[in-house]
């Protein structure tokens, strides 16, 4: 750096002011968008959770019972005096600075609407510090175990709810037949072939499965009596999941552990399912949530106990749950006025309404889940197929190379087509010409699949390209055909990257609104869709509709809650995509 040289006097002077000003200007520019977004998100969170009406006592109670123990856990896991000092310094110093600054602005400049210094402290100091400590803590063994358990619990609940939602639309009876006649025999044959190394049995698996599926479709209307829904889910999902978990664990740490890991959650889930049926709750969903949460959790606990490191970390979920309960008890006992959040359980489980306090997002959430599930299958299959074709099957030069280049340019251009135009395509082609219906879930899923297909292809191509060529050559040298190389070497290596890209693209699809408007998706539906051809609404669609309502309660309350719900789902999806990528990077 010429300007830093203290011996430069002899060469004349260079002013550093301009350079320093420019550096800070460019730094300011790069955080401008982020700060703007951050402020908007703070406001929308305050509106959704009604934090403007939260009394300081309420905030303090939960800060002490929930956030405090969590921070202590992270600090204990990080086990680094430097981090502890820094964190406590930030929390303590931040309190003084924020309170002083905030009061000064309020006194001398202008009052800041719907914000007090406690909230400012919460969002400006406490939230970033917590995020930082969670990051640092998760790198310790203890924290990794705690967050791993927490992640499995939350992920299991989310997947269980999503699967339960899908069966609102897809025919459970057909699935029962298909599973019993097709999937189960095929998997059984394949596993038998694998274990006994009988290649014939493995080859036979696919045809047997196909025959079974066909038979299921034919028998669907012939069979008159079916077991109850709960038994179907128990037989087709809960038992296989438990069995898979049990087999995995038995392989690793012995038969007893395997039986425990499979059997215990299955028993709990079955009991929970029947109890829920008695209590009038949706029993199948309860069963699914319990088993899909229980089995991975139990498998994880068994592994942690086996390894014997950071077992204390397993206490994290209990710590958080205890924090919530104790906080609620204290609030109740002291009679502290609590905020009345818009985003609560009834918001997520009830239909939209004209009165803001009764409005809910449930049908829209169901619509979104169903569309995204279909989009995921379609765009994943098409995206992987296209990218494999472009990367593995076409030459780079020659006349076929030209075709590859054309395809490549075409994909790049498709990625830049505005989403409304895809909406027009869906309206003109799928809804009207092919007669799939205006505003149906199928039309929406096809349209959105085409919309995110270019993004999926581009990221899948990158993942396939990053597989080292040595692996391909090695496989070729063993006499593998191109498909065998692709199936056995390239796809397994590239799969984490492909999945990451697909999930990120799905995040784009879940927030798209313009194509849904163009294909005539309903602005508001009061019942969850019950078939693929029923009219549906989706979360962004509902947000769009409500944003147009003039009442302040809708604008600042109901929509804010919807926005937060959508963003939480987005963060969850993108977060799992990033975790997947990090894990794959660490593994290779």
């Amino acid at each position, binding site marked *: 750096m010429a300007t830093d040289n203290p011996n430069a006097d002899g060469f004349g002077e260079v002013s550093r002011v301009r350079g320093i000003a420019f*550096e800070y200007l460019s730094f300011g520019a*790069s955080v401008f968008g982020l700060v703007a977004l951050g402020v908007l998100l703070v406001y929308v969170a305050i509106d959704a959770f009604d934090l403007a009406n939260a009394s300081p006592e309420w905030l303090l109670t939960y800060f002490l019972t929930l956030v405090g123990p969590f921070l202590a856990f992270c600090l204990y896991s990080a086990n680094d005096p430097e981090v502890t000092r820094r964190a406590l310094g930030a929390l303590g110093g931040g309190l003084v600075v924020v309170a002083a600054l905030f009061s000064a602005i309020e006194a001398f400049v202008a009052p800041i609407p719907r914000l007090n210094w406690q909230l400012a402290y919460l969002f400006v100091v406490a939230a970033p510090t917590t995020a930082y400590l969670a990051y640092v803590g998760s790198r310790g063994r203890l924290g990794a175990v705690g967050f791993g358990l927490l992640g499995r619990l939350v992920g299991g609940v989310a997947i269980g709810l999503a699967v339960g939602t899908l069966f609102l639309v897809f025919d459970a009876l057909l699935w029962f037949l298909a599973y019993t006649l097709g999937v189960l025999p095929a998997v059984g044959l394949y596993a038998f072939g694998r274990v006994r190394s009988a290649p014939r049995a493995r080859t036979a698996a696919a045809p047997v499965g196909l025959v079974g599926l066909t038979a299921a479709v034919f028998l669907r209307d012939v069979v008159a009596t079916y077991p109850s829904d709960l038994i179907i889910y128990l037989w087709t999902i809960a038992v296989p999941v438990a069995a898979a978990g049990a087999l995995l664990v038995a392989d690793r740490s012995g038969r007893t552990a395997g039986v425990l890991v499979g059997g215990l959650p299955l028993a709990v889930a079955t009991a929970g399912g029947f109890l829920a049926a008695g209590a009038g709750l949706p029993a199948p969903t309860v069963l699914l949530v319990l088993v899909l949460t229980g089995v991975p959790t139990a498998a994880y606990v068994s592994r942690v106990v086996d390894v014997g490191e950071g077992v204390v970390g397993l206490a994290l979920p209990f710590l958080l749950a205890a924090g919530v309960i104790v906080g609620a008890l204290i609030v109740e006992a002291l009679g502290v006025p609590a905020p009345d959040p818009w985003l609560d359980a009834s918001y997520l489980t009830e239909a939209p309404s004209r009165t803001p306090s009764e409005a809910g997002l449930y049908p829209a959430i169901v619509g979104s889940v169903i569309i995204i599930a279909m989009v995921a299958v379609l765009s994943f299959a*098409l995206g992987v197929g296209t990218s494999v074709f472009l990367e593995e099957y076409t030459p780079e030069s020659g006349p076929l190379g030209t075709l590859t280049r054309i395809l490549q340019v075409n994909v790049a251009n*498709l990625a830049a087509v*505005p989403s409304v135009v895809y909406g027009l395509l869906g309206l003109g082609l799928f809804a009207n010409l092919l007669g799939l219906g205006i505003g149906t879930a199928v039309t929406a899923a096809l349209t959105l699949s085409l919309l995110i297909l270019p993004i999926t292809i581009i990221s899948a191509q990158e993942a396939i390209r990053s597989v080292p060529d040595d692996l391909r050559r090695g496989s070729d040298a063993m006499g593998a055909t191109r498909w065998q190389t692709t199936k056995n070497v390239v796809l397994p290596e590239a799969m984490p990257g492909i999945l990451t890209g697909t999930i990120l693209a799905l995040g784009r699809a879940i927030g798209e609104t*313009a194509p849904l408007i163009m294909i005539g998706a309903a602005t508001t539906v009061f019942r969850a869709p019950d078939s693929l051809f029923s009219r549906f609404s989706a979360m962004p669609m509902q*947000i769009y509709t409500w*944003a147009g309502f003039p009442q302040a309660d809708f604008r600042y309350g109901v929509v804010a809650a919807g926005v937060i719900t959508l963003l939480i789902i*987005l963060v969850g999806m993108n977060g799992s995509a990033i975790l997947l990528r990090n894990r794959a990077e660490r593994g290779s």
Partner: protein
Amino acid sequence: MTDSTESPDLTRRGGLTRLKEGTYGGLFAACAAITLLTTAAIFVTLLSDAVVFFRSISIVEFLTGTNWSPNPAGGGQAFGIIPLLIGTLTVTFTAALISIPIGTLTAIYLSEYATPNARSILKPLLEILAGIPTVVYGYFALVYITPALKATLFPEMSTFNALAASIMVGIMTIPMVSSISEDAMSAVPDELRQAGYGLGATKFEVSTGIVVPASISGIASSYILAVSRAIGETMIVVVAMGAQARMPEIQEAAFGIPFINPADVLLESGMTITVAMVQITGGDLTGGTLPYNSMFALGLALFAVTLVMNVISDIIAQRYREEY
């Protein structure tokens, strides 16, 4: 990952294997063909209805008309694209005023000034800006930005206005400018920077005098992409800008020079091409009517403009790239 238990098959491949190979190859080719079919389908869908539209409304009338009212209450439809173009240009231009300087400065900071640590944090965070659903941005503009602007700078602003929407479109497109420009700047070889330092240039002079000119083709192509994204942006403007196709009042300044007061356009509601399309879907969607077909004509215009801009940006990036 091949099974070690399988004994190597050194005989000539059987018909079954060859059939399997061909089937999978064909399947993948079919997937790839779908992407081509999508482009073709977009063209055909847009063209077929647009052609029907242009049979009733001449292209000249469409391109020069100053009145847009596809579903008037009293009759007398009019399909003039000029008011929509004014709306689209207003939003695009204002958004570019935000995204281009900020995005360029961000790119310079990331590629020249930021420590590797700061870059690894800032880059994914900036991508978040492009990942937020646009309807959420529209909601922000309507519910937070407009009241804030009204309370501070422009008390006479209307609830639905172009300015708040443009600001949000600008913020959303910052990462498009910054990430592509940053890629171009990072590709400038270090020798050029070192040579600059060797001549006694300061870091500021190297950044603005060497790195930026050397990567100007990438920077320009990022601008075009960001502008094309802003043109096609729908939900932010639909939610925050309202839906009034208006011609701004043309005023006369000194010496009779006509001008348009920017406040007339920015602080009032307006209508972009995309908003006009969304507006029509409120009516009949089964096809056959003139407004339905006009939607496809607008879509064709939008598709053509964005396609041309992408091709231009591609050409600039390819042809005028400095090879090192």
